[in-house]
Structure formats: C-alpha cells, structure tokens
C-alpha cells in the first residue's frame, strides 16, 4: 500500500526532518509510528497524503508515485484516505454535523444516507449530543473525536491518525483504538502516529516504526 525508497525530507538544509526512510506498509496492516517529539512522525504522514513532497527518494501509494501525481488527482488520493490531523483541522464556521458530512458531500453521497451515517459515526465517538455545536464550543478531546469521526466516515482504504488520542483520557483512548481496530478488521490499513507506548500496547496484531531524529531506529 505504501512504499518508501530512501526518502529524505528537509524543511531547511541544516536540520533534516526525515533521513533515508525505506519501508513497505502492506494492505491491511495496523502500523504505529512512534518516537519522541520532533522525531518526524507528522512529517512522515504528511508525505503520504502529499501535503509535503520528499526532498529525495520516492514514495508509492497504491503503486503510484505520488510526487508525479497531477494536482487535479490529489483530491482523489485524499478521498481514499481518512486523516486525523494532530491539530484536528475542523471547519470552525460549520457545525459538528456539517464538518463530518462534508466528506460525504464531496463524494456525492445522497443526503438521507449521509444523515444516517454521520449520526451513527458521531454516536460511536460519543459526540452526537453536540451535533449542532461549532468546533470552538467544544473541548479539545471533543474536537479530537469529531476529527476521528470525519476520518472514518467514508470507510477509507487508508487511515492516517496523528496523535489521535493526545487529548483523550485513557478510557476514551481505548475506545478509539477499538474503533480503529474494527476498521482495520474491515480492511482499512491503519497508520497511527503516537509517542504514547500505552496506546501501542492496546493493539495485538501490529507493526511499529520507531523514529528518532528523523531516522528509523526500530522497525518490527
């Protein structure tokens, strides 16, 4: 599903964010990207959904070199993914319901189906009672759950989650991981970036990529 060949990423010449990354994440895997703050986890994910391009090396997603993807195809790449951003990236002037249903609107899913799906998804992350609120009226953890709902709503082939439980208590974190595991069992490839070892412990059938200062230090 995701192949990287000697990928380097430098935001500026002096301090590289990723150094010589080569790996293969297969379809259906549940992968953690772990490591201390500043290790390059977010950068790693950004390369996959093509917010950033590698300074050197090649990245294939579904066997396609995404650096060569024409701009008009980028939306389609991202529609096949669900992304939980570290900073949520919710639309502040849209309600919670509209934030989540926006993804389905892009896909052209009929209203009736959208309503049902969104309501179910919001209930799964236990935020359905705030459906008509706007993001700024929600706590950090609540916003995070909206972001998770939005990422899962279109049954993505690939789920990229950046520190998805950073604002949640342990109990809720476990529940979210159950949701991810469920999606994974239904065929979604999952990549979760986290520095929280407890989270990694939640999942039995997994792989772990340990990053430190931009290098892979462990991969099992």
């Amino acid at each position, binding site marked *: 599903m995701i192949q990287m060949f000697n990928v380097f990423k430098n935001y500026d010449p002096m301090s590289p964010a990723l150094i010589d990354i080569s790996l293969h994440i297969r379809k259906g895997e549940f992968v953690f990207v772990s490591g201390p703050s500043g290790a390059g986890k977010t950068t790693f994910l950004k390369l996959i*959904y093509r917010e950033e391009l590698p300074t050197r090396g090649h990245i294939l997603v579904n066997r396609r070199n995404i650096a060569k993807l024409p*701009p008009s195809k980028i*939306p389609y790449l*991202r529609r096949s993914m669900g992304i939980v951003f570290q900073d949520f990236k*919710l639309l*502040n002037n849209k309600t919670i319901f509209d934030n989540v249903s926006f993804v389905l*609107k892009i896909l052209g899913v009929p209203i009736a189906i959208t309503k049902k799906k969104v309501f179910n998804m919001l209930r799964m992350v236990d935020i359905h009672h705030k459906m008509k609120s706007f993001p700024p009226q929600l706590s950090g953890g609540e916003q995070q759950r909206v972001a998770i709902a939005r990422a899962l709503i279109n049954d993505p082939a690939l789920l990229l989650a950046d520190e998805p439980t950073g604002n949640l208590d342990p109990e809720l974190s476990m529940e979210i991981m159950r949701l991810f595991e469920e999606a994974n069992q239904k065929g979604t490839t999952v990549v979760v970036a986290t520095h929280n070892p407890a989270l990694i412990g939640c999942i039995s059938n997994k792989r772990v990529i340990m990053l430190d200062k931009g290098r892979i230090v462990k991969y099992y």
Partner: protein
Amino acid sequence: MLRAIRYFLREGWSSLWHNKGANLLSIAIIIVSLYVLGVFLVLSTNFNHIIERWSEDVQVNIFLDENLSEPALLYLQERLSILPEIGEFIYISKQEALQRFQILFPSLQTLPDEIGENPFPSSYELKIKKEYQTIDGVRGLASRLKSLDGVKEVSYDLQWIERLSTVMKLLRVIGIFLVGVLVFSAVSTTANVIKLLAYARKDEIDIMKLVGASSWFIKGPFLVEGMLQGFIAGIISIGLLYLSYRLVAYYLALSYNLLFGFLLFTFLPLEYWLGIIGGGTLVGLIGSSISIRKFLRY
C-alpha cells in the same frame, strides 16, 4: 451535480450576507458601470428611434432640364420605374410647381409675374422604399439619379439625420471607452473583494483541500458569490435606470408637448434588461474566478 449547485448557492449566498461590507463595495462599483452602460444604451436606442422615424418620409426630388422632349421624358420615367429603391413617384410640371409655391407663400404670389416667366423647373418626387432608407442608400441613389440624362439636380433632406448619426457614432465611441474602463474597474474590484474574503478563509480552504475537496468544489461558492454580486448589481441598476428614465421622460413631457415626449423617449427593451443583468453576473464571475485561482494550487 444539482446538489453541488445548490450547495454552492447556499454557501455563496451566506458568505455574501456575512460579508455585507466588502460585498456592497463591489456591488456599488458594478452598479455604477452598468448604470453608465445603461444610460448610453437608452440614448442610442432613442437616437435610433428618431433616425428611423425621420427617414420614414425621406423624399428625393429630381429637377429636370428645361425643355425636355417628350421621348426623353418617357425614357426617364421608364428608368425611374426600374430603379429598385424607388416606390411611388409623381411628376410635377412647371405649372404645378408654380401653383404649389403660390399656395405655400400667398404673399409672394406676384413674384413669378414680376420675373416674367415661370422660374420653377419640372420635377419628380420620389418616395424611397423602406428597406433602402439608409443614409448610404439614399446617397448612392442620388448620385445615380444625377447621372441620368435630363436630370439637372437631385435634392434630398438628410442633413439632419446625418448629423444625428455622427453624434451617435461619437456617443458610441465615448460609451464603449467609458463602459470599458468602468467594467474593468468593476472586475478588478470584485476580484479584490473575493480575494480578501478568500484570504480570510484560507485555513478553511486548506482544510477542504486536505479532506479531498476538488478545486471546483472549493471554488463554487466563491464564484457564486461573485455572480450574486453582479446579479444584484444588475437588478439594482435596471431599477435606477428606470427611475432616471421616468424622471427625464417627465421633464421632457413638461417642456415639449406631452405626446411628443412620451412617444419619442422610450426605455430599454427586455433583451437589454437581461443583457445588463447577465453582463453584471459575468463581471462578478470573471472577477471572482481571477482571484480564487491562486488559492487552489496544490
């Protein structure tokens, strides 16, 4: 597709409403340019009306040589009857011309007697067919008539219309220039207003891109907003134009006689209304699509 358009309309309208201040600015500028355009259109349609009315009774007179022989006269008559421009024509003999003069100017009745002979030449009065009643058509006809044997002089009264057409041509040039400048400034104002609004919503646009919205999907509401600006401006300027028209028509009616002012001064036909509203919408569309483009680069 239909759903997308409905979504664009809703979003575009709500943004228009939320950002009344900035949007009013570009609406105002579009109104000004459409209003000026409209004024020129009203003037030129009315001048056209006047020209049409006038040329309806364009009459050409040809004056004949003295002592034209009977066969020559018949020959001339035949030539006149095969010219396509000419509808009816009547012959006016020297005697008839004199009588007409005497009826028209009773106080000068004795003048011919004093001169001693009848000074009026015989002539033909030609009525021009409607489809040939253009300035160029009449001119061309006149020069052909002049070259006929037995024709001494050709006269036609087109000066007034010619002058009016010159004024109209001038008016058209000024109008095109002025409207061009105004349309340009309207487009750039719309572009800048939409750019401002897009800047304010840059985060939102970036998020939409990240969750897979196509550029059309992001662009749509902004384009609709620009088009709504132009559409609203179009409707308002039609309203203003009509008000001004009524006002001017009222004063015309006061200063001339009522019927003259009312009959002659008309408002724009419906196609022009639609043209003005459509033009405004187009201005808004062009302005917004110019400025939104650069926000959509990946």
